[in-house]
């Protein structure tokens, strides 16, 4: 089976998932991102007119202000023309199919689609459907993947920890429903992190999750013991209705990140969160705002990483 993300020459054609992404390409994206951010001086993002004349369409079938905004900023920093489309469920409820929508947007001469959809695999269908000169970036599909989030997380980890091969990383929370967690796991294992852990109650872990190459912990203190990086996941309120959890209070007590629990990690551990955070549910404010937290730099790095992905897809040389 051909890897749908790569073209015949093994170059990045679409960015759909961190799974199956060759380590060279992963590293190249991170390296490229460093050229867009001045890490010595308050994380300043540079402007580079590398995508001048290109059109980037942000096509969001599921709403997300934050992710869409960072893509928009990234594209504008590269001097691309940006079109934002919040399709939500409106056009499908009018009877238009996903691919009809895509055909219409292609006819408007899009060069690149940034797609978010509530169903796993949606960006794969679009990538299969569009002409070869059009590139697709998955900005989150169902529970499947959110590759740019994982890449910005990797960029952040590399910035603070320099290397991957000596790290212990714990992913804490609702792994079952999380596209972020899946993309993080594939990226971390590809980059050579020797120990990736997931920490959650059994109701929030998918079947055979250990086959993705992770160690499973149900006790947070054990799961955080001696880790270098803590990746928190967002907990959706729906989980209480689905009988996956009894209450957000009980969840916070056992799986919320507090200073007390964080004390089990290494003294120089960093804490990350993809946002938006639920303070008091998955993370305590004093941790979110504390000295271990690198949650805000993550957001800035996210712009540089998205610029790098867009440039690599468009084949733009420095």
């Amino acid at each position, binding site marked *: *089976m051909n890897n*749908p993300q790569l073209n015949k020459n093994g170059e990045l054609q679409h960015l759909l998932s961190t*799974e199956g992404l060759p380590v060279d390409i992963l590293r190249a994206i991170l390296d490229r991102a460093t050229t867009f951010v001045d890490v010595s001086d308050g994380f300043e993002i540079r402007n580079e007119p590398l995508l001048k004349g290109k059109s980037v369409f942000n096509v969001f079938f599921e709403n997300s202000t934050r992710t869409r905004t960072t893509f928009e900023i990234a594209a504008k920093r590269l001097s691309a023309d940006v079109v934002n489309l919040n399709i939500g469920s409106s056009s499908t409820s009018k009877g238009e*199919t*996903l*691919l009809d929508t895509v055909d219409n947007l292609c006819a408007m001469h899009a060069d690149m689609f940034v797609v978010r*959809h509530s*169903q*796993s*695999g*949606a960006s*794969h*269908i679009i990538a299969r459907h569009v002409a070869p000169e059009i590139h697709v970036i998955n900005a989150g*599909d*169902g*529970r*499947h*993947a959110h590759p740019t989030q994982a890449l910005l997380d990797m960029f952040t980890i590399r910035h603070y920890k320099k290397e991957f091969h000596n790290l212990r990383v714990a992913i804490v929370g609702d792994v079952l429903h999380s*596209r972020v967690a*899946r993309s993080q796991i594939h990226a971390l294992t590809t980059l050579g992190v020797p120990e990736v852990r997931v920490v959650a109650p059994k109701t929030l872990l*998918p*079947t*055979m*999750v250990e*086959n*993705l190459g992770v160690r499973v912990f149900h006790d947070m203190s054990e799961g955080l013991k001696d880790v270098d990086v803590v990746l928190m996941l967002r907990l959706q309120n729906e989980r209480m209705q689905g009988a996956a959890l009894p209450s957000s209070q009980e969840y916070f007590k056992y799986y919320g990140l507090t200073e007390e629990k964080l004390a089990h990690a290494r003294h120089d551990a960093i804490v990350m969160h993809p946002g938006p955070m639920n303070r008091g549910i998955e993370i305590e404010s004093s941790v979110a705002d504390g000295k271990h937290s690198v949650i805000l730099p993550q957001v800035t790095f996210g712009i540089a990483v998205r610029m790098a992905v867009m440039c690599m897809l468009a084949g733009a040389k420095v």
Partner: protein
Amino acid sequence: MNIHIRNGRLIDPKNNIDARQDVYIVDRRIAAIGAPPPGFVAGQVIDAGGLIVMPGLMDLAARLREPGYEYRATLESEMTAAVAGGITSLACPPDTDPPLDEPGLVEMLKRRARSLNQARVFPVGALTYGLKGLELTEMNELTEAGCKAFSQADAPLTDTRVLLRAMQYASTFGYRVWLRPQDSFLAKDGVAHDGEVATRLGLPSIPVIAETIALATALQLARETGAILHICRISSAAAVDMIRSAKREGLKVSCDISMNHVHLTEMDIGYFDANCRLAPPLRSLGDKAALRAGLLDGTIDAICSNHSPVDDDAKQLPFAEAEAGATGLELLLPLVLKWAEQERVPLLDALAHVTINPALLLGQKMGHLSVGAHADICVFDANASWKVAPAALRSQGKNTPFNGYEMQGRVRYTLLDGQVVFQQ
């Protein structure tokens, strides 16, 4: 017209024949095997040299989509596909729109099918009104109209008491109850096997226990009521084990699987191939191996196409939104042949799963070529290879997970009731 099928290799599982034998048809029925009956004069001679002559295939699950879903398929298109696949009899699940819960609908379907004169249609009636799982249908009336069994198709029947009553009532009259075991709560929103692939792709999943819990309930109710229970389309190793033990214990239970599950697993979903969105879901490699073992030891009685034509628009969607189903009528025979070759099963045993076994499960004295039987015959070339190309399929449903597969076995003639209804 009298027909002489000569020089063919005759395979008739019921009569345990696998030999070079000629077949003589007089007055739409098998008149003799081997030597011509006295005074036989052929009106048509079919030279089956190098070909295999077998009873027409009997498919236990073929959705023809009439009434209600004619945009997906029509009786005409699907009956043409059936005979092109050598299938001369098929059982239709009741999940049409409206469902087959009224004698009038069943009669109309039978009449429409008869007028096309291609394959025999055996409707499976709805077990409950509207397949809603609440009230029993008029099973006697439906039987008089032509229903051969009663089923919920893929619709849930969550109220166990209704299921108990349905099975008690059916067993009162000796009617067959066909159930596809799936606990609707455990399967809710699920679209793929709860295993490695669904975990990787982030697809909502259906655990094996959704099948085994419902199966345990059905088996218990069969013990309690004495109903003739047929279990449709099992998908898991655990279900094979349960049915094997139930049969050993002497329970009147039978079961079938779809040809898709004989050949495919969750791995075939690959990168969200919606053609592999099937009900029940494709399961693990271990499950597939157990299903094949179940076919070999007689735990699984029949293989069906589970033909469910879906239009392209309903498949070109994200995996979870795509509709379940695949076309199958034209692939049933080659896929049974492929399995037989892979497992080194003699054709005599393999073809029983699509002839005499399903005929017995439908209570029909068919699926064989005994003297006096209806001349429903399939003549095929076991050596002809071809590549599955959706556009070349006669069914209106073009979606199949076997797209691009190399197949061995091509039907040359199909005879229904002593008349050639297909040839190529």
